[in-house]
């Protein structure tokens, strides 16, 4: 059984990485290479293992335990898909981390970070392959505790302190960015997905998705989180927090897909729910990849400019052209623009949502429409949901893929032709940017991120409740202003209107209840007397039954 030793290899590699980074934690360079190279190796194992399970059969292995507590691993196709997602993201992020760690040489204890990093990934993989509820919860807790420590890894930074304090807030967007960039890439790229995994396991396997209103609930939840996520992402100045908010938005989209799939399953059209589920899972894979890419980009921006505030960034494309190109591709993909993967998954999702309005009899016409009778009928099937009790429809994703091919087919040659002939024939002078007659245009005239998102901010102003503060400092005479200080604060409606009031109520209620413990012994005796009388009445009145 080659599966076993691949699975063992996967786990052992992570453990080696963790141990080695502890052993060498004094020597930064060695610790970095050990821990992250072993993570890369382990992720390769992960990819091989997951593919072998997806296209092979499920793998289960139970460890010995007392008759009461039995632990073991159970990797069916769904878990294997998640392991694939995790390993792909880890593969990329680990290679990146080797470079990124240079920033921490000498400053931070790299061995400790390497150890946490490896155990964190191992716990995520175990979460996805646990075979019973107790094991699942144990490893889930391990994952969140380690992510808690990873978040407060750089605890001298002010916002890290705020992020780490309230343990329940680990997943909130201002916790992820506080972690080192390579870790936050994993966190919002992959860790949130384990929550989706739990969602699917509970709703599809455990409860059998029989109830219709659960689907609508998940659907609504997805819509709300998508909307609020992107709304806050648009106006967020901190680049990593913006990415974290956009993770929430994408999680919302994935939940939309899952909700739609549950609705279809409940209303009795398994083929449709398969399409919706595929859309959700495919988007999940895309998102973990391009979110990882974007976070790595943000990390390298942070690495070179040491600032996360987008307002101060500008003109990076000239200094880091390759990184800018990669970041652009990531952005294109996340905003689902055609040639990239984001578009494919969102297209599929929109199709499934559209079909939900439609009665099932047109299904066959759609099926033919999908497969497409054209010459390019190369079906690239993602039939990996066989296990989840849904028919594995070999939905060919040819339509969007072909579209991207055509687009590339047209745009690449034209770009090359264009750049080639512009340099040769026409002359072009280089002159300063048109400033409508202004003599000198400085960088400060440019539109910063906050200005760019100003219209959106105005549109949602009763949700954001933006508080703007304009402080002018004057020179000698009140007429001549020396400088303006502009301060903008956006309301976090969830925190402000739901979370804080609830905690205030609880604390104030408990302050009032505190007076039960008055300190006078007579009151305490009266309590006992009262309970006795109440119980007596309970017996006399009700107790005769």
């Amino acid at each position: 059984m080659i599966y076993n030793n691949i699975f063992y290899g996967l786990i052992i590699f992570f453990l080696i990485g963790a141990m080695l980074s502890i052993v060498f934690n004094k020597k930064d360079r060695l610790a970095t290479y050990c821990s992250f190279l072993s993570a890369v190796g382990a992720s390769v194992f992960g990819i091989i293992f997951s593919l072998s399970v997806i296209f092979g059969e499920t793998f289960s292995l139970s460890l010995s335990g007392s008759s009461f507590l039995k632990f073991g691993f159970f990797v069916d196709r769904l878990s294997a898909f998640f392991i694939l997602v995790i390993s792909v993201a880890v593969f990329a992020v680990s290679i990146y981390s080797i470079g990124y760690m240079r920033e921490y040489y000498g400053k931070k204890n790299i061995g400790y970070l390497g150890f946490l990093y490896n155990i964190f990934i191992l716990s995520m993989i175990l979460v996805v392959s646990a075979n019973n509820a107790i094991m699942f919860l144990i490893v889930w807790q391990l994952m969140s505790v380690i992510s808690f420590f990873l978040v407060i890894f750089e605890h001298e930074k002010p916002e890290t302190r705020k992020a780490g304090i309230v343990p329940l807030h680990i997943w909130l967007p201002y916790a992820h960015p506080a972690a080192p960039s390579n870790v936050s890439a994993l966190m919002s790229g992959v860790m949130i997905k384990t929550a989706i995994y739990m969602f699917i396991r509970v709703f599809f396997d455990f409860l059998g998705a029989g109830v219709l209103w659960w689907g609508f609930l998940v659907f609504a939840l997805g819509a709300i989180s998508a909307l609020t996520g992107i709304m806050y992402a648009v106006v967020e100045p901190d680049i990593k927090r913006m990415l974290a908010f956009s993770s929430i938005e994408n999680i919302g989209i994935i939940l939309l897909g899952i909700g739609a799939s549950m609705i279809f399953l409940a209303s009795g059209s398994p083929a449709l729910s398969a399409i919706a589920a595929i859309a959700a899972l495919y988007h999940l894979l895309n998102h973990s990849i391009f979110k990882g890419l974007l976070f790595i980009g943000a990390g390298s921006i942070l690495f070179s400019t040491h600032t996360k505030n987008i307002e101060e960034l500008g003109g990076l494309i000239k200094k880091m052209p390759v990184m800018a190109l990669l970041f652009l591709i990531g952005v294109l993909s996340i905003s689902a623009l055609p040639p990239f993967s984001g578009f494919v998954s969102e297209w599929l999702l929109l199709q499934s949502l559209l079909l939900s309005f439609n009665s099932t009899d047109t299904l066959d016409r759609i099926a033919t429409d999908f497969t497409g009778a054209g010459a390019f009928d190369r079906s690239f099937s993602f039939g990996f949901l066989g296990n989840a009790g849904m028919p594995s429809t070999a939905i060919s994703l040819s339509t969007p893929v072909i579209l991207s091919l055509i687009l590339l087919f047209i745009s690449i040659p034209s770009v090359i032709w264009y750049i080639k002939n512009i340099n040769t024939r026409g002359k072009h002078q280089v002159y300063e940017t048109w400033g409508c007659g202004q003599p000198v245009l400085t960088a400060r005239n440019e539109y910063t991120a906050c200005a760019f998102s100003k219209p959106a901010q105005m549109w949602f102003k009763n949700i954001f409740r933006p508080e703007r503060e304009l402080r002018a400092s004057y020179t000698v005479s009140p007429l001549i202003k020396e400088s303006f200080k502009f301060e903008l604060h956006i309301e976090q409606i969830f925190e402000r209107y739901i979370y804080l009031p609830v905690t205030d109520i609880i604390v104030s209620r408990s302050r009032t209840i505190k007076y039960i413990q008055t300190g006078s012994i007579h009151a305490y005796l009266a309590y006992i007397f009262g309970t006795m009388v109440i119980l007596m009445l309970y017996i006399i009145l009700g107790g005769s039954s």
Partner: protein
Amino acid sequence: MIEYLLLAPVLISILCFFTKTRKQVESVSLAGSVVTLLLGLLLVVEVYKYEIIVTWQNALFADSFSAFIVLIVSIVGFVASLYSIGYMGHEYDHGVIEVKKLRLYYSLFHIFMFTMLLVGVTNNLGLWIAIEMTTLVSALLMILYSRKSSVEAAWKYMIICTVGITFALFGTILTYYAAVDILGETGDALNWTSLIAVADQFDPTIMKLAFIFILIGYGTKAGLAPMHTWLPDAYSESPTPVGALLSGTLVNCAMYGIIRFYSIASKSTGADFTGNLMIIFGLLSLGIAVPFIIIQEDYKRLLAYSSVEHMGIIALGIGFGGVFGIFGAILHMFNHAMTKSLMFFGAGNILLKHDTKEIFNVTGVVKTMPVTGAMFVVGTLALTGSPPFSIFISEFTILAAGFSQGHIVATVLFLLFIIMIFAGFFNNVSKMAFGMPKPGIEKGEVSRWTLFAMGILMVFVIVLGVYIPEPFYVMIMRVVEIVR
């Protein structure tokens, strides 16, 4: 066999009383507690083999449930005596107490052990006498430091518990009366063995009245709400090893009394009457613990209210009934005893180092006392029921029982309270554990003994979270059979 177990602590306490120097007292006490532990384990092994042992014209007896209690008492007692060597030694070095007080402490400590062991092994309803004696001895232990607050706490403890126990006596009398109707006035009308055999023929109305008085009486000792008012004062004012014993073992002995009568009463009054009462008191204790934990300023009182919470959980477990419910409750008694005493020892170390009980002026414990700090944080995670630790397993079983027995509302409330308590408790402890330490607190642990004691308990907390040894599982299943 049982007589030696009871005799040993009495002898040791007499010996301790007549020793002279601190070194002698500590060595005698240590030797004594080792002997008690061995005897306790021997008894458990014997009960594991022979199911039931009865001696002394069946005034003393030991079935698997009492063996379970003896096991808890002897383990926590042994670890507490280890800890008190370190703790009291530290107090002695700093001149807080002199030799006479130290000798008094150790002798009372072992008598306290004796009384708790007696609770476990008395066959007849003389259980009441044993629990009454525990109250008296622990009250004396509390006034070791003649501070104002500890005297006040001792007085309140004494009065409220004695009132509670008087009610329990009334319940015992009523049960005896119901038993006499059936068994006649023979001597053994009070013994568990004969009572359980014939429990279903008792008159239900008398048994209801009896169960109520027992529940109020022993509930006061166990710290179930609204009779829990003495608990925070007693735990925070008594010396830490005594606090650990109080919270670790004494509440379990009281719960032992309640569960014994529960099994007798529920046979005649029907399980839902007694079960509902247990659930009501369980939820009440959980509910009252939540606000006090969230806004607590004194970390010892924080642990006290967590005891109220866990006793509520055990009562809930029993109330839910079914194999799962009772199994979870019994396992929870063991897990809670281990984790709570671990936390008390941690709190004791912090108190010795920072000399203040305010959560507000204690920070950076992980930095000043790395080992204690780490164990304290792990203990907190365990106590609030987070997965890899033992308490999670028992709470999970009780939850499963709650759902399967159909008490949905109670279980959902139970879950809600636990989450709130987790948030409040972890928030308070993280204020103490993390952050920059206060100036003027030099780094370094209190003493090796304390760490050794905490280490033993840590083993139990972690191991039982992942793997439950076979004999332990069999023993608990036997206890479940007895209770059902």
